[in-house]
């Protein structure tokens, strides 16, 4: 009986749990409720993913109203893959992060934090399932406001200034998007994405449409932290509570990228003449610059979390590069990389959360000798790191392989792109090695000699759940590197849908 309602329940479950969580005062209860809701959402996402394999699309009419008049939900392969990433990241981070969060948050604030977590989850899944341009805006704001709260929970005061910057840039991005869909709505009279795609042809080359395409792309690029607009990201990720970072790094920017790709390919691409060229022409250089600059900065960054954040900027570049090839194989690689990168980066940040339970900080010299203190956690960290580099046998390898194959279809340009990918992979080797080096070979960090850190060997704060979860993620990195039928199939079908118009 519930099966047809699953796309809706995906949103409703975390949405209705969020207000409940605010009321749960005793310690740990809010966490338990949030985790339960998140796991339920994860289960729903798995069912949805299994039911859309093979180019199926699920739709749902909210309130029973037909599509262009009411709001429609639509889950296709792309959405289902993203739902897996979002709910999976949220569940893993919550399961593993209980102790870490308990330490970071005063008890009176805990219920608000977990409520905000569920609201962020609601926002992300709300965007992923929505097929209505304005509805996407609303849920984008839900997710953004909640993410600001999650990041502001960081212990350092720099979290506050980082969040403020994020708030300003995020709101500007969302408002640009709102201007863009406003102009499209003005010219087509509709907000439903499918209806929009059908009606846009008549007004394809009018000036408002071109300006609208610009506003939408820039607005979403801000949210997705595409290269020159990424400046909010490193600090926001670095000063957030570790578990927040693990969650947001795995899905926040990808959701914006998802909307960008859907808008550009399903609606603008096929109907505006020359738009395919513009999309590739503007975004490919940005993608390449993002890859090189992100990896380059990461090589010299001394703060572990900032290093990983800059590496995220580079990885978003990969996804964008795949998309800017405007071919099925390129999109396929980009979408697959969304999934794989979430696995790798989520795992890495979770490992940082585990390290932080025993170290005094997360600058590279402060994690010195961590490999001896926590060998298992460190091993999982290395596996995720290898996946980030793209070593064969890990999930990260596959998406890079597909990306290289897709690039090679483009002749000389493709070869240049492959060189960029190889160069950046070498850079990734360098920065992953720097982390490994300081963790294995650097002398144990002596907190007493360091002025601005407090000695902190608080093993009590370190639960056994976190390494377990970490290893599940690390093994997933290996598993999806070998037998990755589901994400591969979903990504392929998503790429076909994006390039083939709406089914």
């Amino acid at each position, binding site marked *: 009986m519930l099966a047809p309602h699953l796309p809706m329940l995906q949103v409703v479950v975390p949405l209705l749990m969020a207000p409940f969580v605010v009321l749960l005062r005793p310690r740990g209860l809010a966490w338990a409720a949030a985790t339960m809701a998140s796991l339920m959402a994860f289960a729903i996402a798995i069912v949805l993913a299994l039911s859309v394999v093979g180019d199926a699309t699920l739709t749902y009419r909210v309130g029973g109203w037909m599509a262009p008049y009411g709001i429609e939900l639509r889950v296709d392969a792309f959405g289902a893959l993203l739902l897996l990433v979002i709910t999976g990241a949220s569940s893993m981070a919550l399961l593993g992060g209980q102790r870490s969060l308990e330490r970071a948050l005063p008890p009176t604030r805990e219920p608000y934090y977990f409520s905000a977590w569920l609201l962020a989850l609601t926002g992300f899944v709300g965007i992923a399932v929505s097929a209505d341009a*304005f509805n996407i*805006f*609303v849920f984008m*704001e839900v997710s953004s*406001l909640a993410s*600001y*709260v999650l990041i*502001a929970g960081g212990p350092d*005061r*720099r979290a*506050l*200034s980082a*969040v*403020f910057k994020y*708030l*300003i840039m995020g*709101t*500007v991005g969302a*408002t640009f998007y*709102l*201007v863009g869909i*406003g102009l499209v*709505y*003005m010219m087509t009279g509709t*907000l439903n994405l499918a209806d929009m795609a059908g009606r846009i042809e008549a007004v394809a080359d009018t000036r408002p449409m071109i300006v609208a395409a610009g506003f939408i792309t820039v607005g979403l690029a801000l949210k997705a932290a595409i290269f020159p607009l990424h400046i909010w990201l490193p600090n926001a990720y670095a000063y957030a509570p570790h578990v927040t970072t693990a969650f947001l790094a795995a899905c926040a920017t990808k959701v914006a990228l998802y909307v960008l790709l859907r808008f550009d390919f399903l609606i603008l691409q096929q109907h505006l003449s020359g738009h395919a060229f513009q999309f590739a022409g503007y975004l490919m250089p940005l993608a390449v610059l993002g890859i090189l600059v992100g990896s380059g900065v990461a090589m010299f960054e001394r703060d572990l979390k900032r290093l990983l954040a800059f590496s995220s900027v580079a990885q978003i570049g990969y996804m964008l590069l795949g998309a800017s090839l405007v071919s099925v194989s390129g999109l396929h690689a980009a979408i697959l990389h969304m999934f794989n990168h979430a696995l790798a980066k989520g795992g890495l940040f979770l490992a940082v959360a585990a390290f932080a339970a025993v170290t005094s900080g997360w600058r590279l010299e402060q994690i010195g000798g961590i490999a001896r203190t926590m060998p298992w956690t460190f091993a999982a960290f290395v596996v995720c790191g290898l996946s980030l580099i793209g070593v064969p046998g890990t999930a990260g390898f596959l998406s890079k392989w597909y990306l290289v194959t897709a690039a090679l279809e483009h002749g000389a340009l493709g070869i240049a792109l492959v060189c960029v990918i190889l160069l950046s992979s070498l850079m990734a080797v360098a920065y992953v090695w720097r982390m490994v080096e300081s963790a294995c070979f650097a002398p144990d960090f002596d907190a007493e000699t360091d002025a601005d850190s407090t000695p902190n060997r608080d093993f009590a704060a370190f639960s056994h759940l976190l390494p377990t979860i970490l290893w599940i993620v690390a093994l997933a990195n290996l598993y999806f590197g070998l037998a990755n039928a589901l994400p591969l199939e979903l990504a392929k079908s998503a790429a076909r849908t994006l390039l083939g118009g709406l089914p």
Partner: protein
Amino acid sequence: MDILGLYHYWVFAVLLMTGFYAIVAKPNLIKKLIGLSLFQSAVFLCYITFGKLAGGTAPIVGKGAELFSSPLPQVLILTAIVVSISTTALGLALVLRIKEAYGSIEEDEIQEQDAP
């Protein structure tokens, strides 16, 4: 008449960019939030303008009127206004915390303090 009919959109463009200027050029955090609200108000104006129908009335049926301006942009903007005030409230709360933590609400002074 046609030019007059576009005036609303020009005001939208000017307002949008005035707000945006305050966001990017002013170092004061409260001023940035003020700019942000202006920036969003401009978008509201744009939506409401294209919902207007010549000779129409407010979309409340049953007063004998037959032509109505479009209700949909109004609904969207009602939602957007609420989103805007929510963002402002959260932003101001952040500003208060920043003031307590840094003793300043000027962006450059905060950056100086953050620099290692």
